[in-house]
C-alpha cells in the first residue's frame, strides 16, 4: 500500500481515498422510483496522523457529517476506501469492524439525543465494555467509570444519576467519557460544541484539547464555527458540495487561503478583533447559495458563485494540487 503523501514521516492512522457517498433521491412520496442521486460526498481523500486534529469545515449540506458517518459505517459508502492502519473499514467483516470501532470512537452534536435517558451515567459510560469485555475487567468497571468522570470534569457521585439531571455541557462531557472509555486512537467529533452556550463551549473545547494532550488521540473535528476549528486543529480541510476544495496546515489556510471559497468563508466570519486588518469593506459577499448536491454544476462545484471562474471551470473538475502542506482544487490559485 502506498502512502498518499510520500514525504510524510510516519504512516497515517487513517487514510481516506476517493470516498463517494450518493444517496438515492426518490421522486416525491408514494413512489419509490429512483429519479436522482444526491451527491453528498463526491470523491474525498485525506489522511489523519496520530495525535493530530484535522478540522473539517464547510456549510450545511457540504457533506462533512456524511464523511463522519461513513467512516463509522453508520452509512455504507458508494465507493472509495478508508484505511485504518492499512485495513479498509469499508470492506471489513463485522468482527473486524468491531475491532476497528474499538479504536475509532465518536462524539455527536446533540448531547440530548445521544444519551439514553433510561440509563444511569455509569451504565452509559460502561456500555462500551459490555461490547468489549476484555477492555475492563468487571471488578474494575465501577472504579474506572468514576475515574473517567473525574477526567472529564464531572464528580464521582454523578455516576448514579440520569442524563436529564445534567446541563448540555455536562451531557457532552458524559458523551466524551463514553468515547474515551476504550482508549481509542481516533475520535470523530461531529459538531461537538455547536449545541452549547458560548460560555460553556470553551469548557468542552479545553477538555477535548487536554484529553488529546494526555492520551494522544487523533481527532477529526467537524464544525461550522471557524474560530473553534482554528483553535482546535492542526490541519484543516475545507469542503464544498461534497468535495475538499482546500486542505493544509491551519496557519496556511487561515493566513494564506488560496481557494476563492475559503477566502469567502473566512471573510464572512464575523470578527471580534477590532484591530483586524480585515475591514467590513473588504468583505467578500458571495452571490446566491450553494447549489443542491442533487444537481451540482459541471466542472468545479463552486464556479457559479465564483468571481474568478473561467471557461475551463465549467468543463473540467479541478483536482487538489500543491505541496503536502497546502493543496488547493482551483484553476486560479492565487499565491499571496
Amino acid at each position, binding site marked *: 500500500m502506498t502512502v498518499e503523501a510520500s514525504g510524510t514521516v510516519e504512516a497515517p492512522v487513517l487514510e481516506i481515498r476517493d470516498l463517494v457517498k450518493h444517496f438515492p433521491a426518490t421522486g416525491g412520496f408514494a413512489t419509490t422510483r429512483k429519479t436522482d442521486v444526491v451527491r453528498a460526498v463526491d470523491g474525498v481523500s485525506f489522511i489523519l496522523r496520530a495525535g493530530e486534529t484535522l478540522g473539517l469545515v464547510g*456549510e450545511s449540506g457540504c457533506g462533512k457529517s456524511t464523511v463522519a458517518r461513513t467512516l463509522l459505517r453508520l452509512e455504507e459508502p458508494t465507493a472509495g476506501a478508508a484505511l485504518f492502519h492499512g485495513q479498509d473499514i469499508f470492506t471489513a467483516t463485522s468482527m473486524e469492524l468491531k475491532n476497528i470501532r474499538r479504536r475509532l470512537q465518536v462524539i455527536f452534536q446533540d448531547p440530548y439525543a445521544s444519551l439514553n435517558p433510561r440509563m444511569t451515567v455509569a451504565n452509559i459510560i460502561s456500555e462500551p465494555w459490555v461490547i468489549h469485555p476484555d477492555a475492563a475487567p468487571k471488578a474494575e468497571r465501577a472504579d474506572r467509570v468514576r475515574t473517567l468522570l473525574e477526567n472529564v470534569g464531572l464528580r464521582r457521585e454523578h455516576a448514579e444519576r440520569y442524563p436529564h439531571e445534567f446541563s448540555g455541557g455536562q451531557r457532552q462531557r458524559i458523551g466524551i467519557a463514553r468515547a474515551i472509555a476504550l482508549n481509542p486512537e481516533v475520535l470523530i467529533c461531529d459538531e461537538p460544541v455547536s449545541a452549547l452556550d458560548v460560555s460553556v463551549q470553551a*469548557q468542552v473545547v479545553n477538555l477535548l484539547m487536554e484529553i488529546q494532550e494526555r492520551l494522544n488521540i487523533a481527532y477529526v473535528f467537524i464544525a461550522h464555527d471557524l*474560530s473553534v476549528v482554528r*483553535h482546535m486543529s492542526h490541519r484543516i480541510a475545507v469542503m464544498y458540495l461534497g468535495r475538499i476544495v482546500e486542505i493544509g496546515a491551519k496557519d496556511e489556510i487561515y493566513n494564506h487561503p488560496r481557494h476563492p471559497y475559503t477566502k469567502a468563508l473566512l471573510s*464572512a466570519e464575523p470578527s471580534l478583533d477590532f484591530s483586524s486588518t480585515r475591514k467590513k469593506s473588504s468583505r467578500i*459577499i458571495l452571490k446566491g*447559495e450553494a447549489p443542491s448536491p442533487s444537481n451540482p454544476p459541471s466542472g468545479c462545484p463552486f464556479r457559479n458563485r465564483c468571481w474568478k471562474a473561467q471557461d475551463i471551470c465549467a468543463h473540467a473538475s479541478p483536482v487538489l494540487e500543491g505541496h503536502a502542506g497546502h493543496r488547493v482544487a482551483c484553476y486560479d490559485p492565487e499565491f499571496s
Partner: protein
Amino acid sequence: MPDPILEIDDLRIEFRSGGEIVHAANGVSFQINPGETAAILGESGSGKSVTAAAVMRLLQSPPAFITGGAVRFKGQDVLGMPIAKWRDYCGREIAMVFQDALTSLNPVFSVGWQIAELFRAHGVAFGRDANARAVDLLNRVGIPDPALRAKDYAHQFSGGMRQRVMIAMAIALGPDLLIADEPTTALDVTVQAQIMELLEELRAESNMAMILITHDLGVVADVADNVAVMYAGRVVERGPVSEVLARPGHAYTLALLDSVPRANSLGQHLKPIIGSPPDLARIPKGCAFHPRCRFATDLCRNEEPPSVAVTPRRIAECHHVEAVFNDS
C-alpha cells in the same frame, strides 16, 4: 440627544407554571434612538427574546405575566395600549423578524399572498396593487425572479431566501423600528453575511432603528452601534460596542469575551466560564453571576450590584467595575 424611539424601563416578566415561578426578566432597562442599531447580547435563558416578545406584546398570559415596568414607543405606552390600536401600530411602526422563518411563515398561503395581506390588512393597497407591491418587495430583498417566486410557498425556499421573505414582510409598511431576533442563527456564515448586509442596507436607506438580538459576539462587533449585555434577566452592561467589547466593565462581559477563541488565543487553552447559566426559577442571591465569577466577594453574594457609570456613555451593574475594567 434625540428622544429615544423605544424605551424599556425596569421591565419584569415571570412565567408561572407547575407551582414554579421563572423570573425571565428582572428589571430590564434599555433604550434605542432613531436610526440606531442596538444589539441585545446574551446566552440562552438570559431574557433577550422574552424582552422582545413583551415589547411586541406576543407573550401569552398565562403562563407569562408582566409584573412591572413600562415600554414606551415614541413616548406612548405600549403595554397599556388598546389591542386594536396596537395591531394597527404593528408593522406600520414596529416590525419583527424571527429566527425560524419556516415556522413563522404560513405554509398554506404563497409568500406573495402573505406579503400582500399586510397591505390589505392595513388598508394600504388592495388587489393587483397589493400583489405588485409584494413582488417589488421580494425584488428589493434580493429574491431572483420575484414575480414567479411570489407564487411559491415557504417550503420551496432555502433558509436564506426564507429569511429574506421574512425581512420583506417586516419592512413592507416602512416601520421605524425593526426587531430582529437571532435572524441569522440558523444560517450558514456566507448566507449570514448576505442577510446582515441586506439588513444594514435597508436600515440605512430608511433610517430605521434596529434591535438585533443575538448570542454571537462577532455579529455584535460587526454591525451594532450600542450593545446591552444580558444575564439572568437583567441588562448587566450597556454602552457603545467599541467600548464595551474592547474593555468590559462587567465581570460577565469580560468572562464571555475571554471564553471565545480568537486569533490571539491560538495554541493556548481558553478561559471558560465555570458552571452553567442559572436556573431562572432559582436565581442566585446578590449578583446573579457571582457563582461563576472570578471577582466575586461576599458583597456580591449578599447584595445586588449598583448601576455604575464606567465611562460617561456606559453603565455596568457590578460591584467590582474598577477591578474588571483594570483587568481587561
